[in-house]
C-alpha cells in the first residue's frame, strides 16, 4: 500500500507476476551473496595469512599456474559461473515471456502518456487522469502510446513496466492480487516534470469496480465515442461498414481487426492497432490490394486519445454479416446503441469473415 511504513526493504507484492519476479530476485541475491562473501573471505584471508613481514625474506614463488592444477581451477571457475548464469538466463526468459504476453481474456484499458500526465480510457467510456481503477483478480491489458516523447508505465507493486512510445502501441498486462492503492511512476526520463508524472492504481473489489464504472462519464463506451469521431471525420463517406452502405471506394472495415489484409504490393499485414493507426495517419504507406492511393491523411486532425477510440470502434465492428461486437469482456457492458444494418457484400476484400477479438496484438 502506498501509505506504507517509512522503512521497508522489499516492495509490496500485489500482482500474480510479483511472486515469480521476487523468486528470481531472491535466487540472484543468494548467488551474489555467496560469491561476494567468498571473494571477500579469500581476499581478506590471503591478505592476512600471506602478509609480508618487514625484514623477512620473500616467500618463494609457488607452483606455476600453467600446471594441471591451475588449469583445473580455471575450468572450474569458468564452468560454475557459466552454469549458474544459464539458469538465470532461462529463468529470466520464462518470466519475461509471461510478462510480455497478455492473456487472451484480459480486459482492455488504453493509456496515453504525454508530458507530464497519464490519460487513461476504459472501454466502457470512463476516463481518468493519473489514476487507474481496476478490479482485483482480473487480467488487465494496457494498450499504450505517447503523444510526445518516450514515457514508461511502471507499477512497482506489480513488478512490471513497459515503455510508452510515440507512434507505436505497446502493451503491458497484470493481474492484481490485493485490493489497495499502488504507485504508478513514469520510469523513462521525459523532461522537466518527469518526477511529477506519477499516479495511483486503485485495485478494487469487483463490486466496487462495477459501482465505480457505473458512475462513469455518460459519454458512452469508447467504441461509441469512436463511432462519433468516425462520423465527424467523415470516414464513413468512403469506408463501407455495417453502418454505411457505401460503394467500396475504400475497404470495408467489418471484421477487419485482427485479420490479415492483403496489400497492393503483394505482401500482407495483420490489421492490428498499429496498422489502423498508420492507415489513418499515413494512408499511402500500406495500401490494401485492389484499392488506389485515394485516402487523405488525417494527421493533425486526430489526437492519440481519439485514435484509440477509433481503433476501439473498428474493433467493435463485427463480421461482415453485421453483428456488432462489444469488444470487451468486462462484466458491466454499456449497451451499444448503434443501429445494426446489413452491410453490403464486399467481394474483393480478401478478409476473413470473423476476426478474433481480443487477440494479442503487438508485443513489448
Amino acid at each position, binding site marked *: 500500500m502506498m501509505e506504507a511504513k517509512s522503512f521497508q526493504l522489499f516492495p509490496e507484492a500485489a500482482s500474480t507476476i510479483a511472486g515469480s519476479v521476487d523468486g*528470481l530476485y531472491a535466487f540472484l541475491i543468494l548467488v551474489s551473496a555467496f560469491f561476494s562473501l567468498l*571473494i571477500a573471505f579469500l581476499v581478506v584471508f590471503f591478505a592476512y595469512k600471506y602478509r609480508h613481514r618487514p625484514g623477512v625474506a620473500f616467500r618463494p614463488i609457488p607452483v606455476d599456474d600453467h600446471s594441471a592444477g591451475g588449469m583445473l*581451477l580455471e575450468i572450474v571457475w569458468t564452468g560454475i559461473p557459466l552454469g549458474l548464469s544459464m539458469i538465470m538466463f532461462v529463468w529470466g526468459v520464462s*518470466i*519475461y515471456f509471461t510478462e510480455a504476453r497478455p492473456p487472451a481474456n484480459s480486459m482492455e484499458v488504453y493509456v496515453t502518456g504525454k508530458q507530464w500526465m497519464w490519460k487513461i480510457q476504459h472501454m466502457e467510456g470512463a476516463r481518468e487522469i493519473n489514476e487507474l481503477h481496476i478490479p482485483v483478480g482480473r487480467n488487465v491489458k494496457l494498450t499504450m502510446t505517447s503523444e510526445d*516523447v518516450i514515457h*514508461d508505465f511502471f507499477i512497482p507493486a506489480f513488478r512490471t513496466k513497459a515503455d510508452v512510445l510515440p507512434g507505436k502501441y505497446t502493451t503491458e498486462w497484470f493481474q492484481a492480487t490485493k485490493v489497495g492503492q499502488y504507485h504508478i*511512476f513514469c520510469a*523513462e526520463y521525459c523532461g522537466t516534470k518527469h*518526477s511529477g508524472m506519477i499516479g495511483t492504481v486503485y485495485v478494487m473489489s469487483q463490486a466496487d469496480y462495477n459501482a465505480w464504472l457505473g458512475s462513469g462519464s455518460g459519454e458512452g463506451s469508447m467504441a461509441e465515442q469512436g463511432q462519433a469521431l468516425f462520423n465527424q471525420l467523415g470516414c464513413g463517406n468512403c469506408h463501407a461498414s455495417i453502418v454505411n452502405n457505401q460503394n467500396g471506394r475504400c475497404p470495408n472495415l467489418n471484421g477487419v481487426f485482427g485479420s490479415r489484409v492483403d496489400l497492393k504490393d503483394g505482401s500482407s499485414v495483420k490489421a492490428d492497432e498499429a496498422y489502423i493507426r498508420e492507415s489513418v495517419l499515413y494512408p499511402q504507406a500500406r495500401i490494401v490490394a485492389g484499392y488506389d492511393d485515394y485516402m487523405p491523411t488525417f494527421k493533425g486532425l486526430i489526437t492519440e486519445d481519439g485514435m484509440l477510440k477509433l481503433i476501439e470502434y473498428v474493433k467493435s465492428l463485427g463480421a461482415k454479416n453485421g453483428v456488432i461486437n462489444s469488444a470487451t469482456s468486462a462484466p458491466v457492458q454499456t449497451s451499444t446503441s448503434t443501429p445494426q444494418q446489413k452491410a453490403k457484400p464486399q467481394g474483393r476484400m480478401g478478409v476473413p469473415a470473423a476476426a478474433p477479438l481480443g487477440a494479442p496484438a503487438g508485443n513489448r
Partner: protein
Amino acid sequence: MITATATEKETKNYINAEHGLKSWLLTQDHKRIAILYLIAVTVFFAVGGLMAVLIRMELATPAGDLLDSNTYNKVFTMHGVIMIFFFLIPSIPAILGNFLLPLMVGAKDLAFPRINLLSWYVYMLGGMFGVFVLITGGVDTGWTFYTPFSSTYSNGYVVLTAMAAFINGFSSILTGLNFIVTVHRMRAPGLTWFRLPLFVWAHYATSVIMILGTPVIAVTLFLLMLERGLHIGFFDPAYGGDPVLFQHLFWFYSHPAVYIMILPSMGVVSEVISTFCSKKPFGYTFIAFSSVAIAVFGFLVWGHHLFVSSQSAYAGMVFSILSYIVAIPSAIKVFNWAATMYKGNVRLETPMLYALGFIGLFTIGGLTGLFLAAMGLDVHLTDTYFVVAHFHYVMVGGAVMGYLAGIHFWWPKMFGRMYPQAWSKIAAGLTFVGFNLTFFPQFILGYLGMPRRYHVYPPEFQVFNVLSSAGASILGLGFLIPGIYFIWSLKYGEPAGPNPWGATGLEWQTASPPPTENFEITPVVTTEAYDYPNLVHSTIAQEVKHVG
C-alpha cells in the same frame, strides 16, 4: 640497477628537461601529454563531482527544495556527460596509458607523438563545448540523449552538447590508434606478446573498442544533430523516424564504452596485485585473453538496455544470453586476482588497498549486472535506482578505484616523489566505506521501485536517500584528501627512487621521473613478465635487499 639517492633530484628528466608553458603545450613527449591530460581530467572530475554533490543534497529530502526541476535535470545530465565522456573514458588510458605504455614496451614514445598531442587538443576542444554549455544554460536530456525528447522537445543546448561528445570521440579514436600501433610496432627486443604486462593487454583491448565503437556514437550524435537542427527525420516519428533506433545506435557504442572504462582499470589492478604479492598474476594468459573476450563480446550485448522498449522478445533473448557470456571473462579475472594472493608476499600498501577495494566493489557491480541481464527481472529493475547503483559500482567502484590504485601506484614514477602513507591509507578506507554507504542503499531503493532521474520522490524512499547522501559526503572526503597530499608531495614528498614497490615492469627500470627518452639504452627483454625471482628488490622503506 639504480638505487634511490639524493643526487637523483639533479638528473635530467622529462619534467625539468624544458621550462615554460610553451614547452608543455607544444610537447610531443607522451609523459608530458599524460600530465596535460591529468590536469584537464582532474578539473572535469571536480566539476562532475560538484554536480554529484548537488544531486545528493537535493535528494536528501523528498521535496524539490534545493533545485527546481529544470535545474536538477540539467545537473544530473552534466554530471553524466562530464563524468563519462570527459573523465571515465579518458582517465586511465589517456593519463596512465599515455605515460606508461611506451615505458612498459621499452619504447621512447608512442608511435605517433604529434597525433598524441592532437588528441589532447581535440579533447580540450570537446571539453570547451561542454564548458560552454554548462556556463550558458545547460542541457536536460540525460547523458543518454534519448529521442525524440532530445531531438524535438528538449529546451537545452542539445546540439552543442552532442558536439562536445562528438569531438571528444575523435580524441579517443586517435589515442586508441596510437596505442595499437605502438603495441604492434614499438616493443623492445625480446618483448614478445606473452611477455607484455597485463596493463598493456588491457589497453590493447580497450583501444580496439575505441577505434571500432567510437565512430558509431559519432554517427549517431551527428544524426541527432541533423534531426534537431534541420528536422531530417531519423528518430522522431513525427518526421517518420523511429525513436528506438536511436537507442540501438546509442548503446551499440555506449555499452562497449563501459568496457573502455573498466578494462584499463582491470589492467591496473592486475599490475598492482602482482606487485604487492611479488608474484606473477595467476592465470596470466586467462586474464590477458579475458580482456580480448570482453572487447569482442561487449559489442554484442547492447540490446539488454532495451528489454522494455518494445524490442522483439526473441532479440531480447539473444542479448540476454550474450550478456551472461560477457560476464564470464570478468568472473575469471576476479578469481585469478584472488588466486594471485595465494601464497604471495602480500603488502597492504596504498595502491594495494585500492586494488582490493576494486575487487570487492567490482564483484558486487558485476554480480548485480546479472540481475539486469535476467529479462524478467530487468522489467522491474530497469530505469530504477538499482541500475544507478549497479553502474556506479562498476564505474566508480570499478573504474575509479582502479584509477586511484593506478595513480597511487605510479605517482612515484611520474613525479619521483612519495606521498604520505598514513593519509593515503585513510583516504582509501574512507573511499571504500563512503562508496558503499552511498550506493548500496540505492540497490534497495531500486527494488522498492524508485525510478532514476526523479527530482521529487515519495516520502517512503527517504531513509535510503539520506543514507546515500551521508555516504556521499564521506566519499567526497575520500576523493578530496588525495588531491591535497598529491599536490603536497610534489614539493615535500620523499624521493621515490626508480622502483619503490619492488615491481617488475620495464617502467621501473628507469629513473623516477623518467628521462625524456625514457631509457638511456633500449632495454632488451630476456625474461618472462613478472619475473619476481630474478628481481632485485630495492625499496625505500624498511625492506631489506632480497633475491627471491
